[in-house]
């Protein structure tokens, strides 16, 4: 492999990995506040891309993306209110099953609205053929957008959870719901916020990749499982680790194309999942003890 090819693989790996990371971050946010694995996470990415596409037909790109993120965030919030909130006494298992059902419903509604055609959002800068030369590799400017915005999101989240009152309140909810309530934190609001946040972040990711990977009504389920693998790989509940894990998985998949038929690209990720579950279920960056105390 030439160094240009290697760079090419690296960039494509980082691109895909960033999206996986965003989905995984969404999983972690919801998991941290509720203990649920929200398998509808992938659908938020799809919705972001689709809604932005439709809106961009009648307005310019930036407001379209912003609105798409907000609308999807609202959808996330709605899902929490309508479905999740009622399920107080359900087992973790039941919750996961419900999120599967929800993802199917979202998918079918998307099919109804946008049918089976592939949609793609406009490139943020340039178009399909513009490329930037970086150390010999030619990459689309969109890649820089993806990597850049993902990095921004990660930093913003870090600051949010660390230094803002709301962020800390959300973290408090995850460690000890009862204590949080006693301190006057409205846990139900935190839960709703976590769904909104996860949906919004997913949607932004969807807008970012749409020009490159295109948006299709059925893309959600694959992202759901890839995102889950990344979340587990990094350690469930650890949003920062999810970023590292996402990039790692993206790179592995990208390089695997060089020696495996495309079809088996997904097989590799799932095998990684099984290997991790067997060897270190707490993930690459998780601690054994805390994970054994959690429900999932």
């Amino acid at each position, binding site marked *: 492999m030439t160094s240009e090819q290697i760079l090419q693989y690296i960039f494509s790996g980082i691109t895909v990995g960033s999206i996986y990371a965003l989905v995984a971050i969404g999983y972690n946010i919801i998991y941290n506040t509720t203990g649920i694995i929200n398998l509808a996470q992938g659908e938020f990415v799809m919705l972001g891309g689709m809604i932005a596409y439709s809106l961009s037909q009648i307005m310019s790109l930036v407001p379209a993306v912003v609105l798409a993120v907000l609308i999807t965030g609202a959808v996330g919030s709605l899902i929490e209110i309508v479905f999740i909130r009622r399920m107080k006494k359900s087992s973790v*298992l039941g919750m996961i099953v419900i999120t*599967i059902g929800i993802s199917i419903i979202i*998918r079918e509604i998307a099919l109804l609205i946008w049918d089976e055609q592939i949609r793609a959002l406009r490139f943020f800068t340039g178009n399909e053929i513009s490329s930037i030369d970086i150390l010999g590799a030619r990459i689309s400017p969109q890649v820089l957008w993806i990597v850049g915005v993902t990095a921004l999101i990660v930093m913003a989240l870090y600051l949010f959870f660390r230094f803002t009152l709301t962020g800390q309140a959300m973290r408090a909810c995850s460690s000890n719901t009862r204590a949080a309530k006693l301190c006057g934190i409205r846990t139900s609001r935190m839960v709703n916020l976590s769904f909104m946040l996860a949906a919004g972040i997913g949607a932004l990711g969807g807008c970012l990749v749409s020009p490159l990977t295109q948006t299709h009504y059925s893309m959600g389920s694959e992202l759901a499982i890839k995102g889950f693998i990344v979340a587990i790989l990094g350690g469930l509940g650890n949003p920062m680790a999810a970023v590292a894990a996402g990039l790692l998985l993206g790179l592995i998949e990208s390089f695997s194309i060089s020696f495996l038929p495309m079809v088996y690209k997904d097989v590799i990720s799932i095998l990684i999942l099984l290997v991790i*579950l067997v060897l270190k*279920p707490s993930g690459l960056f998780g601690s054994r003890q805390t994970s054994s105390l959690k429900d999932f």
Partner: protein
Amino acid sequence: MKLKKYYPIVLLAGVLVLIQLLTLITGTAYYLTQLTMAAYYVVVALGLSMVMGYAGQISLGQAGFFAIGGYTTAVLTTFDLTDKISRPFFAFLDKIGLLVHKVTLYGDSIVHLSPWISFILALVLAGVVAYSIGVPVLRLKGHYLGMATMGFGIIIYRIVLGTHIFGEADGISNVPAFPILPGITIGGDFSIRIINYYTAWFFVILAMVLLLNLINSRTGRALRSLHGGEDAADAMGVNTAQYKVKVFVIGAVFAAAAGVFITHYNGGIGPSESSVAKSVRYVAIVAVGGMANLWGVLIMGLFLNFLSLRGLFGVYDDAVFGIILVIIMMFFPDGLFQPASLNRIKRILRGK
């Protein structure tokens, strides 16, 4: 042997005969096709019911095992061995009667493996795969099995969709009929439609008998104790890890067997049978029927699959099952046939 407990089975058999006669009388004999297919899907659901209802684990990959069954038999029985028959291994198989010589509709003669062999191989393969996934994953606390099986299902889907030998998007067709006993052949020919109906439901009854026996036995009781917490079972000497794996394997083998039979009945199989949507369907049926309620699963499986196969849900087929799943889990988590759920339904019908 206490015959009293088999009364419901006899009742079921009676109902099945009644249904068949009804279709005869009303001239709707074509319903038998969907009823036959529904039966095989019920077998998958019954196996899953053991895993979900009794062991309390969720499998989102039953369609994957179904596909392992179907594709194994499809590949092995459509692979023409005519030019290989001279080789010693195949000559030997031929001698002991494991190869089938046929003349196709077009007049060519082909030689293929006997469906009995592919059936057994399919079950063994499904069992081995289930064991390999189950042992590492079921050791973990929590519901990792759900995700691992979902991943497994997706792998199978990708493999059959993208590999030439499995027919890629078109799947495999021209799968020959499966003569399981003299006079009983599993195949799509109209003339044997009625036999196929009864054969399919015979397998359902067989599955019910085996599972009903199991539930009231030592191992069945151990399985039931797993639901809702393994600490008790562990403390009473149940090797919970091993039991969870075993029941998972049983569920996989049931699914694979159903896959084999349906593939011969339909004369082919396609990648959609291994999709996550199909796996979700099986979960929905088990949930609606009542997780651990075999009769509930049978009834709902028959009902829902029949309607789906008749095309009642149209293009929203998958959506319907998704919605059912959500509604059941939210409002009737014990399934429709439990007292709590029935009361709720009564209240709703009365206008709260």
